[in-house]
């Protein structure tokens, strides 16, 4: 209790508040919720630190100045009270000083709200209007990518392979909302052959807005899985938003990854790709290893042997689709083979590295159930002396949280690891139950301090181990 109360008055308190705001991407509601549930502000900024951006530093200086002024005002009141200039000055001064942590925790968002509505939003709206015209006038083929997962992977694959022949521009990293699209448009030269635009859906209506802004003429839907259910509430609602891209395209030039989750949304004119084929071509002879994945793509009597640095059977559908689309866009077979060969795992996405003789598959940027299905399937498929699976679970699963994590427990158990490591949080109990229900009997470790665990992973693994490490659990989730 003493530690909790004193944590409000520590010199680092202001930095902690700004860190919390930054971690919630300057969203007021999650920030306020986080403030309400935090008991000890010492332990908040544990896994990461405040990124020193201009916005964060500006806020930090303003906050410190505000706190200082309030403390000085309190001290002045106390002095005036002692001098009997103001009746009750001592009491009011003390109150002013004592309440400053509470006052500034809320006051901090005021300039943010004002700034957002008075400056950022109007400016962003102007940029978006300009960008919409840029996209509309741009002569390039514009491919939009939407989906609950796999968007960045698909974008990077298209960029890597199509760049073998075409002048391609793509939205950077995971910058995938309207403001980022507007910035992307600003940087275009108009001489590009092809634009790839990633859509980062977050709430109903997002994908429709992105479509109206970027004017795509082809659309790729990479899959549907429980994500952002805090806002969408149901998977169906998320699917409707994602498939509004097809509506925008009048159901023409729509490419959809077909599985049980997208099946109900697929209409006849759509082109589909799945684990057995892509747009009429068939996939066969899949081989998965720690160094990559190879397969054969065939149509009529023609066949193409492809090898990618990406790891996992689940990657084949995307790779096959990209290869077929590339051929359709005029690339030669040699260019496609070369482009696919250049595809490599992206950072923290099924990225392999060796640690003390063990192979670690780092998939900590994964944030959805489909990724977990792929990761556990891969763990089951690859050979190893000892198999280890590590996860904290998935954030933002809304009302589906329990169901999703029971399924994750089932999936992990089915992959038969020798050791399962769970990072303790609000979903651990469901994963544990899922493991138990599926009859998992090997070793289970539940870790209180994830940072300490990851730092010391090198002491735990050895030659012959295969470790699949999925998902991340940022500080702002319990």
């Amino acid at each position, binding site marked *: 209790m003493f530690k909790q109360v004193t944590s409000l008055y520590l010199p680092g308190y202001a930095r902690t508040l700004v860190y919390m705001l930054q971690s919630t991407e300057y969203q007021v509601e999650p920030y306020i919720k986080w403030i309400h549930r935090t008991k000890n502000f010492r332990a908040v900024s544990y896994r990461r630190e405040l990124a020193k951006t201009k916005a964060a530093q500006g806020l930090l200086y303003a906050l410190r100045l505000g706190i200082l002024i309030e403390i000085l005002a309190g001290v002045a009141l106390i002095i005036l009270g002692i001098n009997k200039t103001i009746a009750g000055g001592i009491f009011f001064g003390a109150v002013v000083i004592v309440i400053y942590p509470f006052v500034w925790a809320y006051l901090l968002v005021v300039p943010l709200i004002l700034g957002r509505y008075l400056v950022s939003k109007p400016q962003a709206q102007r940029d978006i209007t300009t960008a919409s015209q840029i996209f509309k006038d741009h002569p390039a083929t514009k491919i939009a990518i939407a989906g609950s997962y796999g968007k960045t992977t698909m974008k990077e694959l298209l960029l890597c392979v199509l760049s073998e022949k075409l002048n391609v521009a793509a939205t950077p990293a995971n910058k995938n909302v309207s403001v980022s699209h507007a910035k992307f448009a600003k940087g275009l030269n108009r001489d590009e052959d092809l634009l790839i635009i990633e859509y980062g859906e977050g709430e109903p209506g997002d994908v429709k807005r992105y479509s109206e802004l970027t004017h795509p003429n082809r659309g790729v839907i990479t899959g549907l899985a429980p994500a952002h259910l805090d806002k969408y509430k149901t998977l169906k609602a998320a699917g409707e938003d994602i498939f509004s891209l097809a509506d925008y395209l009048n159901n023409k030039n729509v490419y959809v990854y077909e599985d049980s989750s997208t099946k109900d949304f697929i209409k006849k004119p759509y082109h589909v790709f799945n684990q057995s084929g892509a747009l009429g071509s068939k996939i066969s002879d899949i081989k998965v290893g720690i160094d990559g994945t190879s397969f054969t793509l065939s149509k009529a009597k023609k066949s193409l042997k492809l090898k990618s640095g990406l790891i996992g059977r689940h990657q084949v559908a995307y790779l096959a689709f990209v290869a077929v689309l590339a051929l359709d866009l005029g690339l030669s077979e040699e260019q496609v083979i070369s482009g696919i060969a250049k595809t490599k795992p992206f950072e923290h996405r099924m990225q392999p590295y060796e640690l*003390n003789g063990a192979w670690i598959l780092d998939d900590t940027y994964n944030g959805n159930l489909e990724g977990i299905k792929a990761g556990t399937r891969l763990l089951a498929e690859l050979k190893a*002396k000892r198999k280890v699976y590590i996860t904290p679970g998935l954030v933002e699963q809304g009302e589906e949280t329990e169901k999703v994590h029971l399924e994750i427990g089932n999936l992990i158990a089915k992959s038969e690891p020798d050791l399962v490591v769970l990072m303790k949080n609000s979903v651990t109990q469901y994963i544990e139950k899922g493991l138990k229900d599926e009859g998992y009997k090997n070793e289970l470790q539940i870790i209180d301090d994830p940072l300490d665990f990851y730092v010391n992973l*090198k*002491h*735990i*693994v*050895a*030659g012959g*181990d295969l470790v699949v490490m999925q998902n991340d659990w940022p500080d702002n989730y319990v």
Partner: protein
Amino acid sequence: METVAVIFGGRSTEHDVSVVTALASIIKPLELTKKYHVEAIYIAKDGSWYWDEKLKDISLFSSGQIQDFIRRSNPVSVQFDGGMKLVKSSGMAGRKQVKKIDIAFPSMHGTYGEDGALMGLLDMAGIPYVGCGLRAAAITMDKVLAKEVASANNIPVSKFISLTKRELEQNGSEQLKHIEKTLKYPLFVKPAHLGSSIGISRVKNDTELRNGLEVAAHYDDKIIVEEAVNNLIEVTLPVMGNDEPIPALLEKPLTNPEDFFDFDTKYINGGKKGKGAKGAQGYSQLPADLGKDLYKKAEQVGLDAYKALDCSGTCRIDLLIDSKTNEVYFNEANPLPGSLYAHNWNKAGVSSVELVQKLIDFAKDKFDENKALTTSFNTNYLKQF
């Protein structure tokens, strides 16, 4: 929960290596087992003992703040009444902190630690401890004795001569002549009791031999001079276990024969002459590419030497191979290899956590076996007086 004391530092030229072994390869993995309370016991260069949580932090040593720590702290005393207890004065109203130690994990290289001195103390205390016992430690840490024991057990060794510092001082020229008459250049001159390649020279003529002997005599009172093995492949084999030893992987340092590992090469430059990555033994072929038959043969010589020297817990056996004749020679043994040679065990499929756990288990097994031995019996001898 049992308490394990990791003892490191010490009055040895290998003091610093011992600190790294304890902090990087023993304490953290032991803590990660979540089965033991781990206490860090540091023996300073003057021989005084310290016990503190702060001693688990490498920055205390790397920053040089250890000297301030020593100045401000009271050394601990050790009691041997019914086991081993650490006693530290807290400085508050004369109160004392006492900690009973259940198992000791020596992390000492060289003199007063790896050579059997500490093991003798722990035997007297009557607690289990990790690694070789007094006898094996004393033999392995004496390169001359180790070779004599190996040779007596039909394990091939390269030709060698030993001499004392006194013999060298009194009769240097004669000794030199005797060496040149008995052995063929190039030769290795080594202090008999030191590890980590300290004080070792490779000599090709009488001038270099004279200098090499002088350097070795500076560090030790006993010197060994060995014939170099032709067509040399140098390999090393970490082994663990008691009666049924388990080998790790044969490891081959990737240096030229003339660039044998000296201290800086081994520990400062990460195994490379000149610039290289930090860390011990960072530049080696693992497992050594020897061909199946030669690998098997060398591994067997390593295991035979481990048994012949009566090792237990762990030890690293260094071997020399003549690549033309495929003859494998025992060279020397290290009862506590730097950083436990964890990188080799890791590659062999034993994680650092498993390694320390196994070593603790071996220590307990050995202790239980020894406890079952009869060490006294009643006689009427004293009645006659």
